[in-house]
């Protein structure tokens, strides 16, 4: 015999305390109503009042009590259901979501079932078990009483001899054998209802998964960002510094060689190549994470972009605090791309970049006075940047009607925080 029947029995028995708790919170008016109706003495007014109390209980404290009980019930579910329970998704932690989230109301439904149907079923199974035990034990009971002690009542009739108990004993034994299956079936049904009501349907699970996926995506992006900063720092402190020192030595060596010698020409050439390499390395580091952004933050870095641009750029940045590194870097590269596009394609004569933090979000707008008609889907490099913006939980909007102007807008949620090393 496997452990499942025992687990099922344990599950059913532990249902009772839960049922009592559920009943105590939500069930009392309904029990009273049921009793009154059963007695056939319920007046219409009484019924109305009881229903009103029952509904109000379910509606007002119901979701709060249900949330607490559901948590316990999900933990209890593990005794009979080995499948992992999906983390419950709530649209928010606020009190309001307790009343607006469909899941909250399914929990109330479950608790109502727990208070009413499940104790009846569990008690019924317990009664059957008691009956089976009594039947099976009937020959012993009668034997112990000895002959002439009078007939014994066994549910369906009276028996007064050990022989007469044979059919009962057989039925009891059969019931005892069936009982584990019955318990397992009931526990299984209960568990299925609990899973269905408490863990939400497919769309609920999808939402929960989506939330988890976007969270993990943000974590990954943060990790990448930290890695970029590490690489930038390593290159800057290591390779770049060595290279400058090396190039400087070549420059000095050249001065000590006779100007017309072939050695001087070679060293001169090497010096030139080393300088080229310095420029390339600087650009590489700049492309990973611009140093000015690390040192001075977004407004200064946007100013530097403006200075590098071939089109006149006006920057209006109102970003009083340092933002998370990922946000700074993403926005920087979006603006860089937008300025490059403006210079290359739009024939703009002036570009305005505005950046301001408002209500926990960074709004950035790049507006040019060019001829418009830019297609964000075609090779502008903006598609990849839109993905990077999406990772931060933000969005990128572009408007570029023929005739202009082209406006690129980026909104990124952010809590200003010291950009930590």
């Amino acid at each position, binding site marked *: 015999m496997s452990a499942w029947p025992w687990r099922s029995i344990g599950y059913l028995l532990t249902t009772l305390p839960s049922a009592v708790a559920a009943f105590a919170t939500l069930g009392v008016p309904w029990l009273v109503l049921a009793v009154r109706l059963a007695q056939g003495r319920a007046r219409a007014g009484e019924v109305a009042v009881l229903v009103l109390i029952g509904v109000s209980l379910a509606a007002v404290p119901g979701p709060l009590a249900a949330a607490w009980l559901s948590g316990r019930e999900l933990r209890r579910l593990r005794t009979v259901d080995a499948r992992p329970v999906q983390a419950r998704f709530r649209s928010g932690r606020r009190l309001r979501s307790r009343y607006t989230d469909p899941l909250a109301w399914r929990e109330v439904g479950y608790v109502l079932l727990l208070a009413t149907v499940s104790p009846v079923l569990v008690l019924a199974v317990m009664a059957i078990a008691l009956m089976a035990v009594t039947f099976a034990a009937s020959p012993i009971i009668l034997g112990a009483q000895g002959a002439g002690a009078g007939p014994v009542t066994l549910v369906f009739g009276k028996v007064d001899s050990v022989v007469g108990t044979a059919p009962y004993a057989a039925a009891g034994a059969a019931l005892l054998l069936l009982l584990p299956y019955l318990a397992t079936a009931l526990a299984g049904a209960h568990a299925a209802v609990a899973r269905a009501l408490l863990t939400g349907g497919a769309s609920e699970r999808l939402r929960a998964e989506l939330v988890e996926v976007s969270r993990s995506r943000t974590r990954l992006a943060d990790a990448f960002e930290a890695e970029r900063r590490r690489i930038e720092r390593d290159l800057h*402190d290591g390779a770049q510094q060595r290279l400058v020192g090396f190039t*400087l030595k070549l420059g000095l060596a050249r001065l000590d060689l006779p100007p017309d010698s072939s050695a001087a020409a070679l060293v001169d050439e090497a010096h030139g190549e080393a300088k080229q390499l310095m420029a390339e390395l600087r650009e590489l580091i700049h492309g990973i994470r611009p140093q000015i952004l690390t040192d001075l933050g977004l407004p200064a870095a946007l100013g530097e972009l403006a200075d590098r641009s071939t089109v006149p750029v006006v920057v209006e940045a109102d970003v009083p605090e340092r933002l998370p590194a990922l946000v700074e870097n993403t926005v920087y590269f979006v603006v860089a791309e937008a300025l490059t596009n403006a210079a290359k394609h739009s024939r703009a004569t002036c570009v305005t970049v505005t950046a301001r933090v408002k209500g926990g979000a960074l709004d950035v707008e790049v507006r040019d006075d060019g001829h418009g008609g830019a297609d964000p889907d075609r090779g502008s490099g903006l598609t990849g940047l839109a993905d990077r913006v999406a990772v931060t939980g933000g969005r990128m909007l572009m408007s570029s009607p023929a005739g202009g102007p082209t406006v690129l807008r980026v909104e990124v949620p952010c809590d200003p925080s010291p950009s930590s090393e």
Partner: protein
Amino acid sequence: MRSKSVVRVVLAEDGVLLREGLIGLFERFGFRVVEAVGDAEALKEAVAVHRPDLVVTDIRMPPGFTDEGLRAAVELRRIDPGLGVVVLSQYVQHRYAAELIDTGGGYGVGYLLKDRVVDVEAFIDALHRVADGGTAVDPQVISQLLRRRSGPLSALTTREREVLSLMAEGHSNAAIARRLHVSEAAVGKHTGSILSKLDLSRTDDTNRRVLAVLAYLNGDR
């Protein structure tokens, strides 16, 4: 001319390799490095102790790795406007250049990109200029300023723009003539033409001219 005698230098650079390289460079060209330090506080102390002719400092230094060197340079210039200061920057930051040139009337200051140190002769030339009370502004700063300013600049010929760039970097007429392989008289004609096109007053003082041109280029910022 101060640079005829030995120029005494205090150097501040946190990268050990580059610091050693620069010391070698300075000694090779007859500067005397009286102290080389690795952060801004040590720089201020060293200047107070040695009273050098020239300070060469990195902008980005410990502990914050932002603009410690610049802050120290501005402070040192406030105490002694005659102290020559050259700051080395990782990237062009016009605010830095402007802030530095604002000190001591713009005499004896230099703002150069760090990578310039490998152009040995031009770098040493810039140091001498600053030690002599002149100005040295990085060519990249000037080219960005030139690109941004339109208006009267578009009336300049290509050669005049070249001359203007070199003027703004802080070169004298003689130095510009050497660079462009033309006579000093020809440069004089170009500068006269440039100054009148930009509506700037003529002056034979190189440094006043440099500052006037820089102020003009910074004009609408």
